[in-house]
């Protein structure tokens, strides 16, 4: 009958036990431990990337319209979180951090929720790209958290889906040529190309509200924008394709 542990046991009985004190001393040897989430609402741009990558869907958002913008409350449910830190990795602005705080014990659900409110000013306008200077590198498309931008290098096209775009502005920061910006959509109306026009006055005759005035003698073409109903009859009737519907340059 062998008792291999006997000597160790008797020796242990006379030495100091190796138990840690309780409550345990703070912050020793925790290293990169992923504990309670720390959220900084000031730097959040509401790109929605954290919600996309969170596997247990622990992050929820509530938006409340106020004057001048939106109040965005982001809630991190620690009782659902799996502490993978993917949200920390993907957050561009660094607003989410995993602290080393492991004391996550609560008797009520409210003890285990981290939330913060951001105020986001209303962004007027949609995303536009100055296609003359764009090099079609695709960095904006790759970094878009909602996959709203499509860039094709071979055909040199740049498109954005305005429904998906959340106007976070991350693409603007990533563009190396600084060709992206939010622009108020220009009013659409009849565009006049002076080089192609022969002043035949057909458009003035076709206009149902009489908004166009053409003078053959002085070679002037004017349109009363207030009366124009944008029906497009003048565009269809022009034999020289000097008129088109598009954004009006003032």
């Amino acid at each position, binding site marked *: 009958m062998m008792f291999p542990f006997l000597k160790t046991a008797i020796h242990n009985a006379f030495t100091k036990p190796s138990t840690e004190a309780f409550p345990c001393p703070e912050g020793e040897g925790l290293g990169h431990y992923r504990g309670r989430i720390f959220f900084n609402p000031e730097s959040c741009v509401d790109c929605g990337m954290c919600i996309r990558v969170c596997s247990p869907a622990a992050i929820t958002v509530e938006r409340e319209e106020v004057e001048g913008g939106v109040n965005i409350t982001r809630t991190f449910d*620690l*009782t659902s979180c799996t*502490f993978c830190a993917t949200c920390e990795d993907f957050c561009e602005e660094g607003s989410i951090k995993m602290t080393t705080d492991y004391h*996550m014990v609560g008797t009520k659900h409210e003890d285990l929720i981290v939330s913060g409110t951001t105020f986001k000013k209303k962004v007027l306008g949609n995303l536009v790209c100055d296609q003359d200077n764009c090099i079609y590198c695709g960095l904006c498309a790759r970094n878009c958290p909602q996959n709203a931008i499509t860039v094709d290098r071979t055909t040199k096209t740049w498109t954005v889906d305005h429904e998906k775009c959340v106007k976070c502005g991350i693409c603007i920061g990533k563009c190396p040529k600084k060709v992206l910006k939010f622009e108020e959509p220009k009013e659409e109306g009849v565009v006049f190309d002076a080089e192609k026009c022969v002043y035949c006055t057909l458009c003035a005759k076709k206009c149902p509200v009489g908004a166009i005035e053409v003078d053959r003698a002085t070679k002037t073409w004017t349109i009363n924008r207030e009366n124009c109903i944008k029906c497009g009859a003048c565009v269809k009737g022009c034999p020289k394709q000097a008129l088109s519907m598009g954004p009006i340059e003032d």
Partner: protein
Amino acid sequence: MFNKLINDSAAKSPWLYHINSGSCNGCDIELVACLTPRYDAERFGFKLAGTPRHADIVVVSGPITSQSRERLIRTLAQVPEPKCVVSLGSCPKSGNVFKGSYSVEAPLDNYCHVDVSVAGCTPKPEAIMEGLYKAALILKEKREAMHK
């Protein structure tokens, strides 16, 4: 006469019973790590009991799978009063990544009143001990309320 002694003893000698309702075993390992020499939960009187009839604190881990749901309810009914239920990890509280699955029936709040929840995936043994300590104090309050 002995009432005060009995009430005090309720917090000083809490016996644990652990139910694994479909857990990945991560939280189970950390729970028994609490009883190792480094964290030593036994110095507060914690002891793992072999049967739910001996238990004071029931520790539940795992999202409640459909197969274990019936057994969980029956086991919880076998624990004598006063008792405390502790949900260990984020699975029993919300289902964690298994939310919405066809065979997962979290949260535990649907089946019993959860007294303490320890969040984490998995929670550290120090956090588990804090949660168990809190549960022991709640036990004392329950015992006092039982025999007012």
